[in-house]
């Protein structure tokens, strides 16, 4: 893919350096994700 083409009409590109993946609102969901993930592993391990 030609990045020049993307620059042509991509408003996000100008902000890429400032992009963050996690912000404050994601914290409860991170916990949620970990709970599901760890619960699945624990239940599987004790079941087998």
């Amino acid at each position, binding site marked *: *893919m*030609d990045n*020049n*083409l*993307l620059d*042509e*009409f*991509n*408003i*996000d*590109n100008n*902000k*890429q350096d400032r*992009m963050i*993946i*996690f*912000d404050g*609102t*994601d914290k409860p*969901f*991170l916990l*949620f*994700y970990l709970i*599901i*993930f760890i*619960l*699945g*592993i624990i*239940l*599987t391990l*004790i*079941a*087998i």
Partner: protein
Amino acid sequence: MSIQFTILIIYFIFIIFLGVLAVRKVKASDDLLVAGRNLGLMYVSVSIAAEYMGGLGTIGTAEVAFSQGMGVIWYHIASSFGLILFGLAFAHYYRKYNVITVPEFLYYLYDIKTWKAASVLNVVGYWFFTIIQMTALGALVTSVTGLDLKLSVLICGIAMTIYLLAAGMWSVAFTSVAFMLTIGTGIPIAFWWVMKKEIPLLAASAGLSGYSGLAAALNGMGLDATALFSPFSLGGMAVFGYFIGGILGIPAAQATINYSFGAKNWKIARLAPVLAAILILPLSIWTGSMGLFARAAGLTNNPKLALGATLMSIHPIVGGIGIAGVFAALISTVAGILFGCASIMAKDIWQRWLHPDTDDQYVSRWTRIWILIIGISSSFGAMTLPKILNQAFFVYSIRGALMICVAFGIWWKRSHPDAAYWALVVALIGGVMYQFNLPVNFEAFFKLHISVWCTILSLITFVFISLRNKWTTQTSSELPPFIKYRKGGRK
């Protein structure tokens, strides 16, 4: 009223409430269609995972394990591979282009006729698929509640339509959190209960729990437990087929990937599918083991009923939680497909194609109208057209071609708009020929799945036309104005 039924009813009401709650988030059409491009990492990953885990991944994997053993774990390994591939190689392109639909991305990569063809094929395919998935959902509800199949389908269809009408992608994101929690806890808890508490109760298990008890019980039934437990019990071709399905079926599948379009930025769009892949990875270990339990316990002779029979035979509360998990997996998939279909219909066909000079309010209104039309018509379709199950071929025929168009469009400089258009058309013609055995029985003759057959056809078509056709002024004049500068080919 059974305990399982009560749990399901309470859960259903809660889900509708949650979906409708999202209405306060909607102010413009972008809020409906792509959640205002404001979804955080967890909303996107959880929505993708919940959408991807559907009837095939739950009831279907238990069915395969029941008859062919634990080799079915490759289904979700391959699916996870497809999601990671989408995340790392495709997602940021879609997000950087600020697209709302996959056909729209083809518009940017190719031309107007490819966009129109992809829009129509996607809408027809997803409409069929919504009906098929609604039938599966209705069958699950019927097996638990004892309600009439048609009534079950109608109740589920209308409820889903109501919450999608409220806030579109925001509703899907909100409900997906609850769905994922239900799937991610309900199914492993039921699995744990089966392995720990139910297997020792089987006469042939010699009081052992876990896989050793299950092996003893299977051997007691005269089956070969070692072969059924082998991760290669399905054979190499089936595993290869799962990987082909994962690779072809995900990177251009609107219903699965559109949550990445709603991500806050392209980094989130890229990482979220990888997190979703981790969530779906273990699912077939749980469902497959419960499918094998159904066989060891002699609960049913019908593999399709393996998971339902297991969950209905165990402790009612644990079984009810497990059924809620399966129900969540199915309903999140139907809602995702219905929403994906309505998005393309409203945005691509209705607004951009047929009514281009309309304002945002008009788009919002018609997005909701199309959710309503597709939701209600699919509910009635699922009630009255059981034979439509065969029409899944339509989706299988075009998904590989869409993937080829997207992948080549991104990475091959010579990709030509005519090649993309004809790859789609040829895939559809190939799919129809395969489905109706014209002129030969392709499945018996070539020993290929329909999606592989159509992908090969569209790949040959795409490469041949791209190599033969040169970019000219005429070609670029068919492109949207803002990428017209690409005269003479791609840079």
